């Protein structure tokens, strides 16, 4: 009897079919989150706070440190190192392929050096930079800058190379000169690629700053981690780690938001620009 009752049923069923799986997956994730916290709590109770601070203990200390400004002081230093280093590294790296656009020979000459620079372990230079610049922020900025440089260079290079010749021809026919082409065609076309480079380089910039601080510093989140560890203050270590992860998270968010706005012209499925990690 295909009556109204049947149709109402189907309506609810349809809605249920849409919401059901989504709710189930969010529900699952929530369950996992609770389980993780439960395990954390259990471990801290079983092993003792020397080994693992309890979630509650960490949360309490975290709030404490934020409120008395201590955490923010260190965090803002690390953030400053990361941002300044990022800017110093990323801007020339993005500009270089641009400037060398019409000199393919120079780009080719540079290529093995760039590949080498990209592949070489920049973090291994940390002691050298500390030797040169001391334990202040300069050495961290230098490390971040050189790490970011090579990442962004290759992304920008890919962006310049992905130039659509047909668009350039179109522009030339309507009267664009070299500068117009660079400004209206080459640059906007390269921006998505450059942004992918930014997205990849961002965690490296924060990580680089923290690592350099771990090795030698007297301020910053890395310093905080090292100091807490040396004082066997596990809760302090956790607090600093959480702060670091939070900064990376916010950094990711920022890059995503900016990218989404800057690249709102992009068609939804741009497969080639999905970074693997």
């Amino acid at each position, binding site marked *: 009897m295909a009556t109204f009752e049947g149709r109402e049923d189907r309506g609810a069923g349809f809605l249920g079919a849409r919401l059901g799986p989504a709710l189930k997956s969010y529900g699952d994730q929530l369950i996992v989150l609770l389980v993780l916290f439960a395990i954390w709590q259990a471990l801290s109770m079983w092993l003792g706070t020397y080994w693992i601070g309890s979630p509650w203990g960490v949360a309490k200390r975290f709030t404490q440190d934020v409120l008395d400004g201590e955490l923010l002081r260190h965090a803002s230093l690390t953030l400053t190192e990361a941002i300044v280093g990022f800017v110093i590294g990323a801007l020339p790296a993005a500009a270089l392929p641009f400037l060398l656009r019409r000199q393919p020979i120079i780009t080719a000459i540079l290529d093995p050096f760039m590949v080498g620079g990209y592949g070489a372990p920049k973090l291994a230079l940390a002691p050298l930079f500390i030797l040169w610049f001391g334990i202040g922020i300069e050495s961290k900025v230098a490390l971040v800058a050189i790490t970011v440089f090579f990442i962004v260079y290759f992304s920008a290079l890919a962006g310049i190379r992905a130039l659509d010749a*047909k*668009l350039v*021809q*179109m*522009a*030339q*026919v*309507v*009267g*664009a*000169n070299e500068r*117009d082409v660079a400004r*209206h*065609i080459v640059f*906007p*076309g390269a*921006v998505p690629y450059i942004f992918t480079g930014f997205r990849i380089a961002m965690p490296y910039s924060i990580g680089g700053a923290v690592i350099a601080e771990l090795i030698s510093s007297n301020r910053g989140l890395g310093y905080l981690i090292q100091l807490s560890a040396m004082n066997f203050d596990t809760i302090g270590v956790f607090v600093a780690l959480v702060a670091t992860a939070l900064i990376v998270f916010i950094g990711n968010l920022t890059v995503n938001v900016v990218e989404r706005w800057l690249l*709102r*012209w*992009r*068609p*939804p499925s741009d497969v080639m620009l999905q970074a693997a990690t």
Partner: protein
Amino acid sequence: MAAQPLLEILGLGKRFATRAGRDPSPWVIQDLSFSVRDGEFLTIIGPSGSGKTTLLNMIAQIDTASGGEIRFQSQAAPISDPKSLNPGLSCKIGYVTQEDNLLPWRTTLQNVLFPLVVQGRLNDETRAHAQMLIRAVGLAGFEDHYPHELSGGMRKRASLIRTLVYDPPVILMDEPFGALDAQTRMQLQEDLLRLWNIGRKTIIFVTHDIAEAIALGDRTLVLTRAPARIAGEHTISIPRPREIRGIMTHPAFAELYQRIRAEVQ
């Protein structure tokens, strides 16, 4: 007033670069000659792969020629040396290509205004003109949309008025309506004729569709397959203004169609 033809193609030839170690590549276009009068709507028919796009590329000075001459306003255009090419001949030749080539990062309005921006002619008057064209092809309301938000037909229309907006005296069109459905195509053909009527530009319109060539053109040239040369020339005696939708019922149409059809082999 039999003036000098605006555009003369004399013995034009094109073959692509021979790869080292291979036989010389065949001529795509060989010994092609025709002329175009000022204000004429010339259609060119040719089968796919007959070098139609290559021909237009050479006229627009995007591509070099391997032989022959192109004269614009009685002056020879430098088409043999890639470095001396002048794409668009300083904005005298507009080119509506097969792909719409809209800039993905610009909105519809920004795309249409683009030639004005690079030519330094953007002002209230030209902006109003652009808006008028946008309305004329039915894109009103989509000015702030990005190309990926437009349908194929809408992008085609945008690319069409992008060329019209800066009023080049000569306009080349490479199968602009080819990928569209019949309804949209007819609509755009009507729009094109209407706009052309206002300005009476010189148009060279390439297509593989015989009916379209007859409906739109004052004169039609038929190209052979590669190596392309003129197989035939037909004056379209159907008077203007023309009714696209009923064109096929015109007495002259059927005969023209048959004659041209025979040549397109």
